[in-house]
């Protein structure tokens, strides 16, 4: 078996057992990147030299018994909106092209402490604003299952890299579905943890009240392990929840688990294949001892407008700091200070980012705040209440991750509103701050992966991961691999 086909934990075990060296694993991963990334474009930056050097360091730590994590020595990559000291961190934007952070984000540091070998930074939608990973300054990411299709977004590079075996696991960020939807499109497993569980320190903000970092991997076991490594209270993030780092062992048992299917998640736009596979998955879980019940969550129709109002408002403020002065793109020519701002920002941001900044500035502007922003925060409260009611009855909610499978490249950006509407299954989870897990649950008629979304109550990651784990113990969708088109081999 090709080394890169292994899961992170399988590899970690062999590294601890000295059957595979960290350098060997790192070289294998770098080779795969070399072969495949010219086709899929998962990476913005590959740090070959650093990774090889780091591999030696980690090997030493393992040999000396200092690095004992099951993830020690496993090569991985992180989304390009996570700051890593001295390493280009661009958010896939011309605005931050060449930007070198002077500190490392907490989540990445946690993985470093566990012995991660960082391969590089993955491609994404510019500033994480998008659902297709096409808005990157560094070109669109391609879906390993079909190079004519998008991998989803905004963590498209992180999802495609796992799917294309160019990293054993990755970190992404999820503001409105940006881990879950690409995981679904790429046939892998992804977790968006409860808001406040993983420190956001060092995550370049899109929408502060919704952003959350999470892992993407080949299966639930990998994702759970990475989650355990990155979760935990961080005094540098005021919204980080004070709780002990998670410790649990996955259990293949869903007996008595109450699962609810909110019917509003499966609307008119849902493709029949997607709907069918979601219900089949529910049947499988039922067969394993869970109870399944359908219910209504009528508030869902307000989730998308509320989400876009809040996300754009926060983004318009968060992205104001990019002005050409302290870091990032600075226009060559300008008349004066004001013009410096205008030129740098107009030239530095892409169309979608500008659009969201404009929406955000509008909904916060004098006279509109109450009608839009305040109203959206009230809807957020309603959404939270709707979920509270649901979790009074159910342990886990089961839904599609997206109404469709991966669309073709170039088909989505022309109609932004339509693209926003495709986030129907994911955004409400961010509004309510809840955890969401996506596991592969089948393929459509064209062979494209379909992901099952499991939504948990706040801080119920263990229940969620157990459910996903049990599902994977009884299915093999997560074991299927694309037929790779390699840039070099093809």
């Amino acid at each position, binding site marked *: 078996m090709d080394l890169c086909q292994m899961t992170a934990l399988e590899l970690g075990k062999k590294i601890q057992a000295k059957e595979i060296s960290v350098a060997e694993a790192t070289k294998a991963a770098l080779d795969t990147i070399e072969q495949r990334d010219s086709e899929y474009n998962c990476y913005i930056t590959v740090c070959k030299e650093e990774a090889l050097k780091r591999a030696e360091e980690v090997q030493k730590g393992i040999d000396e018994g200092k690095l004992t994590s099951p993830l020690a020595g496993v090569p991985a990559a992180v989304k390009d909106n996570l700051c890593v000291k001295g390493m280009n961190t661009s958010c896939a934007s011309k605005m931050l092209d060449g930007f070198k952070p002077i500190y490392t984000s907490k989540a990445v540091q946690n993985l470093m402490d566990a012995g991660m070998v960082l391969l590089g930074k993955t491609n994404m939608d510019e500033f994480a604003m998008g659902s297709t990973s096409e808005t990157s300054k560094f070109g669109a990411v391609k879906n390993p299952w079909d190079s004519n299709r998008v991998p989803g977004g905004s963590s498209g590079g992180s999802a495609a890299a796992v799917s294309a075996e160019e990293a054993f696991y990755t970190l992404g960020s999820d503001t409105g579905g940006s881990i879950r939807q690409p995981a679904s499109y790429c046939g892998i497993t992804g977790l968006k943890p409860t808001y406040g569980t993983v420190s956001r320190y060092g995550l370049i903000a899109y929408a502060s009240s919704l952003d959350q970092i999470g892992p993407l991997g080949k299966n639930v076991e990998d994702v759970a392990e990475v989650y355990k490594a990155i979760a935990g209270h961080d005094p540098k993030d005021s*919204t980080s929840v004070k709780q002990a780092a998670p410790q649990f062992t996955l259990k293949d048992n869903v007996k008595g688990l109450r699962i609810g299917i909110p019917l509003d998640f499966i609307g008119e736009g849902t493709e029949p294949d997607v709907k069918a596979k979601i219900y089949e998955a529910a049947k499988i879980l039922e067969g394993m001892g869970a109870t399944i019940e359908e219910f209504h969550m009528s508030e869902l129709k*307000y989730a998308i*407008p509320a989400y876009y109002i809040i996300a754009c408002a926060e983004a318009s403020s968060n992205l104001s700091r990019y002005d050409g002065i*302290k870091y990032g793109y600075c226009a060559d020519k300008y008349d004066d200070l004001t013009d410096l701002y*205008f030129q740098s920002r107009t030239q530095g941001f892409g169309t979608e980012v500008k659009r969201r900044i*404009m929406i955000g*500035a509008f909904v916060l502007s004098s006279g509109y705040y109450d009608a839009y922003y305040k109203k959206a*925060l009230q809807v957020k*409260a309603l959404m939270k209440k709707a979920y509270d009611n649901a979790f009074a009855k159910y342990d886990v909610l089961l839904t599609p991750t997206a109404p469709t499978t991966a669309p073709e490249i170039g088909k989505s950006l022309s109609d932004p509103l339509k693209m*926003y509407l495709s986030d129907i299954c994911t955004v409400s989870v961010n509004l309510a701050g809840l955890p969401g897990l996506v596991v592969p649950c089948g393929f459509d008629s064209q062979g494209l992966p379909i992901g099952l979304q499991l939504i948990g109550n706040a801080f119920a990651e263990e229940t969620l991961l157990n459910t996903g784990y049990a599902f994977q113990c009884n299915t093999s969708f997560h074991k299927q691999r694309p037929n790779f088109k390699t840039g070099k081999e093809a």
Partner: protein
Amino acid sequence: MKITDEMIDYIGVLARMKITGEEREASKAELSKIIDYMDVLNELDTDGIEAMSHAFPVKNVFREDVIKPSVDREEIILNAANKKDGCFKVPKAVE
């Protein structure tokens, strides 16, 4: 709501971005459509509902008033396009 030229200009000033040329007409149309869609919230009666900024009731997160070393100045200005004498350099700021 129809987004007018004045509104685009006003928002552009607030956001320090210039929307011109072809992009401008497209922007106006897109923004109008998106804002119209957002107006669906108006059908919802939210009277008496507390606006929720944070999904969880975390409060009183403080830091102790203890000095920690600052960052080396070279790092602070490392990424700046224009700098001079340890400072960021900008065109004359008139008050």
